[in-house]
């Protein structure tokens, strides 16, 4: 399966899971389980940064269409797509690993810990920016902070589960052909 087809299927599946499964679970009003942005975390290394931001905008806008209030998720997605390359540069261990592997994973980032830091930081920023835009209308700071932290924990759990369920096989590609 080509990389493009794989990513399109991933896009559709993640949006459907978000809208029809996770959005219907009402744990508590302080916890909103989010998983759809995993698509941005799993985007290939090779894409240009502008393309990453535009794809992230499309993802956020699709989810916003189901929520009938455009803007919130689009803004959060674009922000993490912009910050993603910086984090990868800091966390990736050896020279050229981002050209040897296709996309971020525990293996390509050299261990489980750097990968979880990568996922954790981006999840936190996504939730913080999203809930900040929402809380800006309601204006309650503590509510915003607690909601961000709790939802980040739940999202990280969901990411770990997704990572264990759908193991992505990534072979080592050499660029010395």
């Amino acid at each position, binding site marked *: 399966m080509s990389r493009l087809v794989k990513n399109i299927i991933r896009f559709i599946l993640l949006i459907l899971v978000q809208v029809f499964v996770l*959005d219907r679970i009402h744990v508590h009003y302080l916890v909103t389980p989010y998983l759809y942005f995993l698509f941005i975390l799993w985007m290939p290394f090779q894409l240009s940064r502008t393309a990453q931001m535009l794809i992230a905008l499309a993802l956020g806008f699709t989810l916003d269409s189901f*929520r009938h209030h455009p803007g919130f998720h689009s*803004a959060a997605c674009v922000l993490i797509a912009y910050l993603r390359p910086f984090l990868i540069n800091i966390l990736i261990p050896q020279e050229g690993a981002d050209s040897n592997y296709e996309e971020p994973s525990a293996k390509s980032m050299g261990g489980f810990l750097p990968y979880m830091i990568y996922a954790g930081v981006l999840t936190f920023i996504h939730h913080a920016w999203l809930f900040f835009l929402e809380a800006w*209308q309601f204006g309650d700071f503590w509510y915003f902070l607690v909601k961000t932290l709790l939802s980040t924990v739940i999202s990280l759990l969901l990411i770990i589960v997704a990572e264990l369920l759908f193991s992505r096989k990534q072979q080592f590609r050499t660029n010395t052909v």
Partner: protein
Amino acid sequence: MRNIFLFIRRYFNFIVLVILQIFCIYLIVHYNTYHNAVASGFMNEVTGKINTQYNKVDYYFQLKRTNEQLAKDNERLRNQLAENFDRPDTSAKIVIDSIPFDTSGNIRKWEYRAAKVVSSSIAAPNNFIVLRRGSAEHIKKDMGVVDPNNGVVGIVTDVSEHFSVVMSLLHKDSKISAKLKKGGEAGQVMWDGKDPNRLSLTEIRKSAKVAKGDTLFTSGFTTTFPYGLMLGTVQEVVPEKSSNNFNIRIKSSANFYNLQYVYVIENYQSDEINGLLKTATNKTNN
């Protein structure tokens, strides 16, 4: 000039980020105007169709609860049938007919239309309900929506050909004029964005006598809802420190968790009343 191009090339990604963020925030702030322009045409129909498919499955699992609701509704309506009332033999009697004009001069003011719910949310900070009935089936903007047991659900904000979007009470812009059954004080019902099924009532003076369990009605002051539809019951009364008002917590009578059918209410006089108000305001402005 060369320096400007160099600057743009160097910070191109950052500039794209800023532009996209400004675009998104523009969408959030100006959502009402935007929503009418684009979403009602295309996105509304697409997401509506996907939601309809999902609802076919979801509906099956809620059949029992929906049945109970409809039976309750039937019971209430049967109790209102004319045969159940005995009328003393006097010369003056009140006749309410469903024909638009009858001999005693009654005019139909409100009409209820049933609509199927295809999707509804409660977990988001701004919640919407989508109905499988649109402008082709006589739904218009600003109509009121109630559940089968006459509990207020929300107001229609957007209509496409076969779907309509309802802003539920659980929305930050939702404001409904309400009246307490006991004292008759009027206030506004709003939502603080946290717990579904828990609303707040504002603009009630501290001099009013409010107790836990009091019933809250629609006031009938707006053209959206008739007088006396259930909004909820008082759960907690907290005096606001900074003002002369109470902050009252309300348990909503409509259950937003399992809506399957709702009624959309049309007011036949709304155009006339709103037109009159408009000319009155124009006169004072000039």
